[in-house]
């Protein structure tokens, strides 16, 4: 049932966290109502980075709107582009060549690793451990260097287009990815030693920010947030796209539903991603990297929905087309939006330090929420 919104009583402290704040990853404005150190109410105020992407896309063609979407969840920009390309291909009924599918999945998984690395470093920094940030960025630099050679960009890579990928891989790509895989496997122990096993860290994360199985589903949580509460919702397993049905990897779920479980889920996901990359990197078939499509794309009249698994959760691209060269209505179902709605439920009654820990494990990227 709908909860009664609490009213402020005498002696409550109302403070603003953000929009400029070292702990909110982006411009998120939270209005906290505190009783001493205990949180009574959390109210997010969004819209500081609202760029009306959905309205903009109504006047951009199907080839153009993909560039705008890399800027939504900029840490998984490949995956965002992938989602849009898949949706358009669904409408056009175009068959993507195998080579392009392999490349797309490898790029997606590398992006997932890079995104989780940044999450890990930033979260440790929020909790006061400053050193893991540098370790995380060292790995992330290697990945972005690899991507830069192929895609030409380090953050907003507009590489995936309807039909395949934009250009072929750089000749050094396979060699560099293989050396990265070797390097990464040795680094993983470091992460566990430095942060995961630390008793202070565990005390700050265990039993904090609990969300139950039922509530996770009701609040629409997806991705690692839901999987930490036991919900099986990995889109790569349930509704596989591209060649995810041919790759072997585990869906990581935990049952504890607290911040520590979310942390462990993301760490293990990094391991699974490197496993996928390892399986695929030697198997990239020769062939076209892009299917032949017309220069100006027109989707037939109708509606198309595509779900993908980004580093944050389930991204949905919903295109309503009237047969023109531009979409009639695009809706991006952003994972962070629903995850953020669960924040108040998670931290009510806890302390400010716990808010920081819980928010860190939700892995919010605000441009993804505001679009």
């Amino acid at each position, binding site marked *: 049932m709908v909860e009664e919104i609490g009213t402020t009583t005498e002696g409550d402290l109302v403070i603003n966290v953000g929009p400029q704040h070292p702990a909110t990853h982006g411009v998120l404005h939270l209005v906290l109502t505190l009783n001493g150190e205990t949180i009574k109410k959390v109210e997010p105020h969004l819209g500081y980075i609202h760029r009306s992407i959905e309205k903009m896309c109504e006047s951009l063609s199907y080839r153009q709107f993909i560039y705008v979407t890399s800027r939504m969840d900029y840490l998984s920009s490949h995956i965002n582009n992938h989602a849009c390309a898949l949706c358009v291909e669904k409408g056009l009924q175009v068959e993507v060549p195998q080579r392009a599918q392999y490349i797309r999945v490898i790029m997606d998984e590398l992006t997932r690793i890079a995104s989780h690395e940044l999450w890990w470093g930033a979260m440790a920094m929020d*909790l006061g451990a400053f*050193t893991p940030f540098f370790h995380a960025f060292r790995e992330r630099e290697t990945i972005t260097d690899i991507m830069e050679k192929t895609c030409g960009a380090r953050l907003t890579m507009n590489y995936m287009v309807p039909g395949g990928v934009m250009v072929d891989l750089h000749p050094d790509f396979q060699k560099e990815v293989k050396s990265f895989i070797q390097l990464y496997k040795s680094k993983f122990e470091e992460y566990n030693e430095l942060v995961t096993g*630390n008793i202070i860290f565990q005390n700050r994360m265990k039993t904090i920010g609990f969300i139950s199985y039922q509530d996770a589903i009701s609040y629409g949580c997806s991705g690692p947030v839901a999987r930490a509460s036991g919900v099986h919702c990995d889109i790569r397993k349930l509704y596989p796209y591209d060649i995810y049905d041919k790759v072997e990897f585990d869906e990581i779920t935990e049952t504890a539903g607290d911040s520590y479980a979310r942390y462990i889920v993301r760490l293990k996901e990094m391991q699974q991603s490197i496993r996928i990359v390892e399986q695929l990197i030697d198997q990239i078939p020769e062939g076209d990297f892009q299917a032949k499509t017309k220069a100006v794309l027109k989707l037939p009249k109708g509606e198309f929905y595509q779900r993908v698994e980004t580093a944050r959760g389930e991204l949905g691209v919903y295109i309503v087309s009237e047969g023109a060269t531009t979409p009639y209505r695009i809706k991006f179902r952003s994972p962070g939006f629903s995850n953020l709605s669960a924040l108040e439920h998670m931290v009510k009654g806890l302390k400010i330090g716990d808010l920081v820990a819980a928010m860190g494990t939700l892995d919010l990227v605000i441009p993804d929420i505001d679009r």
Partner: protein
Amino acid sequence: MFSLEGLTQLIHKWLNSHLSPSLALLTEFVLVGIAAIALFALLGLSLVWMERKVAAVMQIRLGPNRLGPKGIFQTSADTLKLILKEGLVPDGADKLLFNLAPLVVMIVAMLILAPIAFAKNLQIWDINIGVLYLSAISSLSVIGIFMAGWASNNKYSLLGAMRSGAQIVSYELSAGLSVLSIVVMTGSLSIKQIVLSQENGWWIFKAHIPALIAFVIFIIAVTAETNRAPFDLAEAESELTAGFHTEYSGMRFALFFLAEYINIFIVCAIGATLFFGGWMPLHIGHWQAFNHIMDYIPSSIWFLGKTLGLIFLIMWFRWTFPRLRIDQLLNLEWKYLLPISMFNLLLMTLVAINGWHF
């Protein structure tokens, strides 16, 4: 052997031969005051540089390396910048308290310098209740923090000051009890006596197990008292922006900043004095030859080395551990450290009475 006490004797004789006794004393006061302030400034600058370099090494990067060889002039440049900055007083802030707070913290830090023995016979004031004086004066810094938090007219600052106050007051107990256990062994509160009693070996070796426990508790407690990570909630950057000194800028902020590092130096100096012998070289029992060799290294170098070693340890903590939450922190103190340190005091007394030490 070079020794600083020769220098002090020289100055004392020169002044007394040229001026009347009271005027000589007055001049000595002024000289000591200037020396203390100079030491203050110098220590502040070098410790900040040391922190940045240590942090850099632990984070696989270089740290300041542009201004001066190895970046040693970086802190001077930062201090110059802070002096030139506009010191904003927020609207609605209590002006008197706002301006007074950094001064209180600074003065407390300077006062504590008095009984510390920097080298043989180089001590500003050998008061016979040295240890008690140190504990008492260090408690006064809480006032400065509360003043800063309240006068800023900012909810964040107030929260930070509250947290900090609770933390400091709690951890003083454990620190005091650990210090007390060494006093039990020496039988004297005077710093000079404590150092001299370690002539045949440092307390951490002589009073083995209880001294080790006391040392560990002491290090944890003073890390909490000086608001250093992992107990730095008061200035937790990602939670409260900067805690009680959010609203301070310019020279006032520089005073808080320097005072923090001086506090670290002081508590490490106390730790070195009590547990590691202060300026006393490493002597092992009555091994004359070994002790004689150790004496060749000047006592001021011994003192500095030990203090810097402990400072490095505290800096190491900061860059390795995440932060504790306020209730976990207070939990640690009241439920774990305090009982252990009380039990340890008993143990140390038993050891002292029965002579179970070296």
